[in-house]
């Protein structure tokens, strides 16, 4: 019997605490993270089934989202990749009737565990959406600081200034907006707005960044800027990105997971996950080959 996640494993707000030891700065000699990097957390999904009411959307997904790597989720529309992504920070359950089965852990901790606060999960596992969605009534500064206000309680103006600047620099936006921080976020170009949303997501120092088609509304130059940024962010965060752009998955990710739908009405399944280079040169499954080659039949 499937249950709605929000009820089956009802998280009692405020009771549970996901541990977040804060950034662990790597030594300058760290060969993987380089200077300024930190060890991020691993997401493990085991036997995950996702539902919208009676509709079985995603079936039996077991996979690892590796730390300090970019994992791309690819597959045709309706294959469940976005639904799966949204289950990784408990956003799936915000849909009425949504259900989750199986286990999803963040460095071993069950994010659906009893007493775990979903708001706390979403702080640790941030999300960047398809269309840039800065808060329309807020200034650039307030957009970035908005998560801080929710999460960090009281904070001095100078502390907040520091975090806003660090986040905007981290999102490669500081130089473009530093003289107009009080202007509305919606006055920025599409690519700038998306980088603003990334700045907002990293301001609260998450462990994982989930990105759902982050470049689909952007022009090619803005897209490449975001891809460069993703490449840098992985030194600090674990990143999972849903994309329909095959070349983007090939360019920007270290690992690629292919989801497929055998036929309409059936649940989506994970067909294959592996190093991106292998998926795009020598995939193990014919369905993967047909999809990445743009060939069906």
């Amino acid at each position: 019997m499937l249950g709605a996640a929000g009820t089956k494993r009802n998280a009692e707000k405020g009771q549970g605490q996901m541990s977040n030891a804060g950034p662990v700065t790597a030594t300058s000699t760290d060969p993987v993270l380089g200077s300024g990097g930190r060890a991020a957390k691993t997401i493990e999904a085991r036997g995950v089934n996702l539902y919208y009411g009676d509709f079985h959307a995603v079936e039996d997904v077991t996979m690892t989202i590796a730390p300090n790597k970019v994992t791309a989720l690819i597959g045709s529309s309706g294959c469940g990749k976005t639904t799966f992504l949204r289950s990784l920070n408990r956003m799936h359950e915000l849909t009425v009737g949504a259900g989750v089965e199986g286990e999803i852990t963040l460095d071993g901790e069950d994010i659906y565990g009893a007493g775990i606060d979903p708001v706390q999960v979403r702080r640790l596992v941030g999300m960047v959406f398809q269309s840039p969605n800065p808060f329309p009534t807020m200034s650039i500064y307030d957009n970035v600081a908005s998560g801080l206000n929710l999460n960090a309680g009281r904070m001095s103006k100078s502390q907040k200034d520091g975090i806003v600047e660090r986040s905007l620099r981290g999102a490669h936006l500081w130089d473009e907006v530093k003289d107009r921080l009080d202007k509305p976020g919606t006055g920025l170009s599409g690519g700038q707005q998306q980088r603003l949303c990334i700045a907002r997501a990293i301001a609260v120092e998450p462990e994982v960044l989930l990105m759902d088609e982050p470049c689909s509304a952007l022009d090619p130059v803005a897209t490449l800027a975001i891809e460069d940024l993703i490449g840098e962010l992985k030194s600090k965060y674990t990143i999972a990105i849903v994309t329909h752009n095959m070349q983007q998955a090939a360019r920007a990710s270290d690992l690629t997971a292919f989801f497929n739908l055998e036929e309409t009405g059936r649940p989506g399944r994970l067909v294959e996950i592996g190093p991106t280079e292998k998926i795009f040169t020598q995939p193990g499954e014919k369905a993967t080959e047909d999809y990445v080659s743009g060939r069906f039949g």
Partner: protein
Amino acid sequence: MPDKIRTEYQEELDNLEASALGGLDLVNTALVRTLEAVEHQDIELAQIVVADDDRIDGRYLEVHQSLITLLATQSPVATDLRLISALLHVLKNIERMGDQCVNVCKVIPLTGNEPPADARMVELILAMGKQTRALIAQAKRAFAERNVEMARDLVRQDDIVDDLNREGFRLALEIGDDVDKREWAMTMLLAARAIERIGDNAVDIGEQVAFVVTGLFREFEDASHPEG
């Protein structure tokens, strides 16, 4: 969703493969003429082979350019990408095979109008040529059928050409003290060497067949590590 998409791209890739492998037919024709020119010391036919090599070079340039365009415009991946990579290699092999025919034909005028031909040496070169033509045909078929076993068998077939080539050295040493005969034999050794290289290129094409099918590139035989 339609059963098949990107059909034009697939057709184009299929046509380019056929066109590239068709280059092996051009090489076969060049080799037939080259052998005839050696057999009859036919300088005019040799000149035709040299001039006609432009057709093989032209095929190389045309298919190469089209493959680069496909890479740039269609972003091929997986098997398609391996196929295009292999075809770029194979085109180079074909172009080199044509050049080796030219190399043979260019030495024929050096042997003079009535050379002191040794029948055994001429027969040996013709035998090498016949075996090499079989290799070319087998390489083409192995590629078209993606037949790795057939491709691997090219090594065994090429050993026959190599053995004949070594036999040529023995014949040249036995040819005697006559200066003209020795000079002719030296020239024929250059021709035999060029034909032997055509066989090597056919084996290289076989290695590309294995790459397309398995995704792994390994030399069937490594001349620098023959025991490896």
